[in-house]
């Protein structure tokens, strides 16, 4: 099995962090399982060749993804099955995009979209078509952004009641601010931890006491959001998401 991943810089004014192309070549044709964990991004998929199925973890039922699908923010694990050979183009969209998304963004959903008209011949062609669609359709829901940097709440929201703010968060991101922060905290933990070998620092030494009361607190949240423990996660293969996470970090190291 051969895997390739290419990326192309996006347009931050549109909330597009970067564009990517992901391909799997395999002989014989084998299904590849992908374990997606929650992240603070929307992802647009354009399946050029092959098939991608969403697998329901509870029942094991498989549902084929439409050719053009937008994945909203999710706070539970997502399982995909790729049928190789596969070629997928994609765009990684930031929280700023959510604030100008022209439809309602319910969390944990895979929305059917038509952003690419006809065929995308190359990553450049795909990027051009997606940028044009987002530029035309985008609709800023509030005069100023709700979030400043990361998930830091903008100052203008201080005038609103907690109940009203909760409604605003739900309508824009599909999740409450607490759930967004939980995702951010889990990602912050994973960013700093990578050496789980014997004799190396243990997980407890990476747990930020300002965020997690103790290691069981971290484990509980981690398992709830990803379906696996931190150590199990590092052994899990998530070819596409590993690349997306690394590319996101490179695009915006101070996020």
């Amino acid at each position, binding site marked *: 099995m051969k895997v390739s991943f290419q990326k192309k810089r996006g347009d931050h004014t549109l909330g597009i962090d970067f564009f990517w192309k992901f391909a799997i070549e395999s002989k014989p044709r084998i299904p590849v399982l992908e374990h997606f964990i929650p992240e603070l991004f929307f992802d647009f998929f354009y399946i050029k060749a092959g098939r991608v199925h969403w697998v329901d973890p509870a029942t094991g039922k498989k549902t084929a993804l439409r050719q053009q699908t937008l994945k909203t923010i999710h706070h539970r694990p997502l399982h995909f099955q790729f049928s190789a050979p596969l070629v997928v183009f994609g765009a990684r969209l930031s929280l700023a995009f959510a604030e100008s998304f022209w439809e309602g963004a319910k969390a944990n959903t895979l929305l059917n979209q038509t952003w690419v008209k006809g065929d995308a011949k190359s990553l450049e062609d795909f990027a051009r078509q997606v940028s044009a669609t987002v530029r035309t359709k985008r609709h800023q829901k509030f005069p100023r952004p709700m979030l400043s940097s990361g998930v830091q709440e903008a100052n203008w929201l201080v005038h609103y009641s907690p109940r009203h703010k909760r409604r605003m968060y739900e309508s824009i991101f599909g999740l409450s601010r607490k759930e967004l922060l939980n995702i951010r905290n889990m990602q912050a933990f994973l960013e700093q931890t990578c050496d789980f070998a014997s004799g190396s620092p243990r997980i407890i030494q990476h747990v930020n006491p300002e965020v997690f009361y103790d290691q069981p607190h971290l484990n509980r949240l981690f398992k709830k959001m990803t379906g696996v423990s931190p150590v199990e996660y590092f052994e899990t*293969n998530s070819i596409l998401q590993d690349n997306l996470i690394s590319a996101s970090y490179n695009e915006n190291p101070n996020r």
Partner: protein
Amino acid sequence: MKVKKSKNDIVNDYIEGLKDDIAPLFIDIRATVLAAGPSLNETIKWKNCLVYGTTKNHIQTVVGKGKVSLIFFDGASLKDKFGLLEGDGSKARTMRITSPDYNKKALTDYVKQTLKNK
């Protein structure tokens, strides 16, 4: 130094960004691993770990100060005839490499065994 380009852009970016004091050793180790296991795919897990895997992650590379550590996720099942694997955990074992004169034969053997056991 001649570097074999990865099919993965992220890996190429990562190698380009390595510090001069560790880059030659890292590149040499990468070449040895890929020669022993041509079927391995490379990816970057989070910000600083190069991971080699097939349908599952097998080996993780961590760059430290003056050293490169290779973590074999299923290292406990490897036959360590060279005695270079560290660790006493239930699964993972680590091979630490600090100089360019490292035991390539041992690394090749570990990688081949890893792929055989997968």
